[in-house]
């Protein structure tokens, strides 16, 4: 659906994007994770045809994307980071304007506007000027505007920045739903939890360079980190550690501070089998603690700094 090949972009002395390459398959949700100023917005501006790359190539749905491309842009739904709606127009007027701009006929636009209003939960406020909307409602409309023409690729640039927790959750659920419906999604964020929750694959970007990409497990493996599991219980803990160490996914097991400490691969999947194993040696587990290495740890490992630095 999307292929970025060795994309470069410079603003004066600042090289904002340096040889970024990644691909997104149909129905895949791809997260571009990086701190502010990492080059995320510049990258997706090039992907959406808002900026011309100095070098490299972007292909969307088989068509090369340039600022003057029309066909390639038709395949993309763009949701900018900042609210991009007309406050003095109603939600329906905002949606209808952009629907027509994306080539829908008047009849198609009316029908699609009704559908999108329902999707973003604004059907009952459709005729109200958006300046009267809450921030969360405006955010939802902002996303709805990107869905009007049923794009094959939805590009969301940090859509949850400055959003209250309730609206944020609604936005994330919407994106998950779109992903389930088969829409390819390019999602930029500097929130590790969002990338972990939404994305099939994640690209970690910093200082304009794509440091690494892959599934969460691939990225975690890339930096050699394992999940940590601690079991507290009653019984022969040494025997429990020995039994657990026989499982293929367990890399190490020992008794420390009155509990069994394990280094494992894929703790969540392993837990049922692990608990059965220690139960067989007579240990009654009364507490389990799982500590999974996250993308934050990966980012720290790759860049030497935290995501929010």
């Amino acid at each position, binding site marked *: 659906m999307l292929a970025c090949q060795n994309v470069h972009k410079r603003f004066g002395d600042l090289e904002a994007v340096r040889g970024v390459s990644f691909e997104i398959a149909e129905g895949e949700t791809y997260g571009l994770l990086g701190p502010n100023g990492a080059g995320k917005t510049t990258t997706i501006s090039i992907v959406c*045809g808002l900026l011309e790359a100095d070098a490299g190539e972007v292909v969307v749905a088989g068509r090369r994307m340039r600022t003057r491309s029309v066909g390639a842009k038709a395949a993309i739904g763009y949701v900018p980071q900042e609210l991009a709606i*007309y406050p003095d127009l109603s939600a329906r007027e905002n949606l209808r304007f952009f629907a027509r*701009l994306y080539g829908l006929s008047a009849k198609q636009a009316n029908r699609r506007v009704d559908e999108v209003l329902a999707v973003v939960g604004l059907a009952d406020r459709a005729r109200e000027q958006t300046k009267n909307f809450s921030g969360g409602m405006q955010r939802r409309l902002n996303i709805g505007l990107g869905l009007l023409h049923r794009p094959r690729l939805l590009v969301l640039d940090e859509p949850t920045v400055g959003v209250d927790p309730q609206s944020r959750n609604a936005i994330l659920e919407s994106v998950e739903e779109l992903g389930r419906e088969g829409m390819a999604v390019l999602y930029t964020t500097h929130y590790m939890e969002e990338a972990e929750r939404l994305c099939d694959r994640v690209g970690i970007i910093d200082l304009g360079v794509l440091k690494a990409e892959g599934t969460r497990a691939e990225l975690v493996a890339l930096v050699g980190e394992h999940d940590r599991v601690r079991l507290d219980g009653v019984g022969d803990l040494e025997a429990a550690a020995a039994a657990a160490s026989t499982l293929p996914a367990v890399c190490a097991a020992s008794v420390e501070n009155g509990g069994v400490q394990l280094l494992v691969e894929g703790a969540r999947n392993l837990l049922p089998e692990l608990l059965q194993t220690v139960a067989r040696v007579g240990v009654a587990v009364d507490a389990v603690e799982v500590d999974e290495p996250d993308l934050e740890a990966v980012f720290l490992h790759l860049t030497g700094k935290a995501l929010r630095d």
Partner: protein
Amino acid sequence: MRAALLIAEKDLRQRLRDRSALLVAIVVPLVLASIFGLIFHNVTGGQVTFTYGLVNEDHGSAAEAFEQQVLAPMERRGLVEIRREPTVADGRHLVDQGKAAATFVLPAGMTAAFDAGRRTQLRVLGSADQTIGAQVADSIAQSYASRVDTIAIAARALHARPPAAFAAAAAPIALADVSTASRQLDAGTFYAAGMAVFFLFFTVQFGISSILDERRDGTLARMLAAPIRRSAVLAGKLMTSLVLGVISMTVLALATHFLLHAHWGNPLGVAILIGAGVLAATAVMALVATLARTPDQAGAWQSMVALVLGMLGGTFFPVSQAGGLLAKLSLATPQAWFLRGIGNLAGGAGAHVVLGPAAAILVFAALAGAAAFLRAGRLSAR
């Protein structure tokens, strides 16, 4: 084209909801035109009626010619009101009481003196308090005397009796200057046209400058991400400016015609001038917008340009009548040519008289438009 129309439609919808646009485009110019028209009614060529006394002691053909051929036509046009008095004392009393600006005294024997080729006096008793009216009366008398002298000389040359020529003597003075160079508009029309074209330059800002607002608000990026050409955004904004300008000017022309009794003249001529004026205003404001980085900067610069061009172009005061460098400088503004075009129509002339001024305005439009076009990429850049 479809995208440009959609953008223009959306912009016009926004402008209709924006009361400030309505104020600038219609209300303020209408109010100012009314105020200025009332203030300057009798100063800048408003319809003036001077009252004069007339004492005819002659009753001969020369006096009759003055009365019938000179004063009567002016009276019929409402330019003067004549009050006939039996004696010079009555005529002077009329002036002293302020009931007349001047009294013409046609002395006994005036016709006989003309016939004999002798000198005689057509006296004007002017009011010290109504100097303009008195000066006009003096001019009427002098012009008549000059005409009679010319006829007498010609008659002597032909050995004919001069009185026969008196009947053919036409009205010697027109109170309004109808030369092409400086047509006079009545105050109501002058300020109606002046305020309309002055605020036109502010009104069209709402179209082309909104692209800077959209850039600031992020909606420009959203539009540019849509499958439309970048030129469609510019075209839509230009259309908005043009439509706003035409609507504003048309409404003001009609409103001032019906409410303030402004005499704009031939509708086709006015339409040509409005069309040219709107193009020039849009082009000039587009050029200024391309020089600005922010909406606030654009608004400030455009206001300054509109104000300077408006003042220089004589929209507040008839600068063209000041003569000299100022009058010449005023011709470097589309506003001055617009007012000149309206002035040309004032005498009831056909639309052809505005072609020159319209062409001059279009030269401004072309020059500013070309410069704006060369810089237009900056406007639609994200």
